[in-house]
């Protein structure tokens, strides 16, 4: 028997009224796999992450995490929509980093990183601080631990946000266009931290990105989304090197032209 996939989207659909954002998505992600999602805006790529983080509900299908349903729960052998307690139990395995950082502005970098470990995981303050110090060191911001978000650059804020997400020890980490809000010269430092995270931790990573170079170099697999479906997927060398689908070719051509 093969190992359970870390994440499995099983025929998942998302609609807003008459607009279908995702149409019967099937996607499996293996433990430790790094998957990039690319595609034109409006293709539903961010929605994939938001559904997995339970920021959006789904209309059809089931999302599974490590063989357990996330959006549903089993009752009398049947799958029924999950209640909040069940969602929180499964959601604990997932962390997310946002395009707009979303740090807590009334807390220092350190406080941002220890808040949820203390309130949600019930860690002792000293333990949470020790762990946060390690993580802030990993993202290269030990010296900024007592700074408030407003005193940090965009790149620094995003690195704190990565440390904050890691502090909850997720197994799956979601990155939603995490460099899109940054000045070009700050993109590199954030990508470097993600690279490091990929090397040093046994994390499953799913990222929506416009950084084609990074997706090519970092991912095990790239999925090209178009109109709410996966249009083409494969190892980056194949997808970028010899795209089979006409739409993929057009998109890559347009993006590389612009870049």
């Amino acid at each position, binding site marked *: 028997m093969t190992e359970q996939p870390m994440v499995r989207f099983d025929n998942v659909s998302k609609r807003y009224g008459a607009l279908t954002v995702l149409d019967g998505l099937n996607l499996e992600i293996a433990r430790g796999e790094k998957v990039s999602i690319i595609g034109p805006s409006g293709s539903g790529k961010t929605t994939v992450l938001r559904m997995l*983080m*339970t*920021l959006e509900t789904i209309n059809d299908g089931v999302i599974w995490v490590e063989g357990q349903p996330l959006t549903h729960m089993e009752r009398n052998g049947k799958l029924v929509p999950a209640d909040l307690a069940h969602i*929180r139990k499964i*959601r*604990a395995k*997932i*962390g*997310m980093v*946002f395009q*707009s*950082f*979303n*740090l*807590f*502005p*009334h807390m*220092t970098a350190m406080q941002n990183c220890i*808040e*949820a470990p203390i*309130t*949600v995981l019930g860690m002792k303050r000293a333990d949470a601080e020790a762990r946060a110090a390690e993580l802030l060191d990993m993202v290269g911001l030990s010296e900024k631990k007592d700074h*408030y*978000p*407003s005193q940090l650059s965009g790149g620094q*804020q995003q690195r704190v946000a990565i440390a*904050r*997400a890691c502090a*909850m020890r997720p197994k799956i980490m979601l990155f939603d266009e995490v460099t899109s809000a940054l000045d070009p010269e700050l993109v590199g430092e954030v990508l470097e931290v993600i690279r490091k995270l990929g090397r040093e931790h046994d994390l499953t990573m799913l990222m929506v990105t416009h950084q084609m170079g990074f997706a090519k170099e970092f991912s095990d697999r790239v999925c090209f989304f178009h109109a709410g479906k996966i249009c083409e997927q494969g190892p980056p060398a194949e997808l970028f090197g010899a795209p089979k689908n006409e739409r993929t070719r057009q998109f890559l051509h347009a993006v590389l032209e612009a870049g």
Partner: protein
Amino acid sequence: MGIRTLVTLLIVALGVIAALATQEAYSLFLPGLLQGAVLTIEIAILGSLLAIVMGVLAALARMYGPAPLRWLATVYVEIFRGTSALVQLFWLFFVLPQFGVTLNAFLVAVLALGLNVGAYGSEVVRGAIQSVARGQWEACTALNMSRPQMLRRIILPQAFVAMIPPWGNLFIELLKSTALVSLITLSDLAFKAQQMNQNTFKTIPIFTLVLLMYLAMSLVVTIGMRLLERRASLGLARGKAA
């Protein structure tokens, strides 16, 4: 207006009171008026505390409570916003006893004014909570916080800053409304003034002092709220991090 200007104004108001008090035509009324002012301050402070509690509770109940609680909170807000404070005072003081519930006048004053202002306050609290960026909620969800944890640790501390100026207005509104309690037998500042005026007809000194005293009290509220606002927004550059 800066805090410095407000403090200057307060000093001037108090200075004028002190200067007037050196004249016998004024000093005669000062002890009685001060006595009334103490009662006014007591009602204003207790009423404000009740208003804060009711405002926060009603807002949270309306936003996140189960249906019956939401309904109850809406009824409370609409009744107390939709009828005048005077009618509420009279109702609690004169009508309720006819149903066998007799409350003393001081308690009625605090209840009526606190509940009245709390109804307005709940809208202030609601608006401030809704003004917190959506990304903050999403970050809380991504960190797997429960709703009470989100509100207590992340959302309310940020909403708090946005609430301070409108609450300042409400506190001053409440302070001035305390004059109504003179109509339910309480000897507050307004009551003392009317009583002295009826006995002596010294309208000018009495109402000049009363005006200055209300002004001084509301300036204290305004200055206090400004200081609170300044303190609360330290380290919180709102919007910048969102």
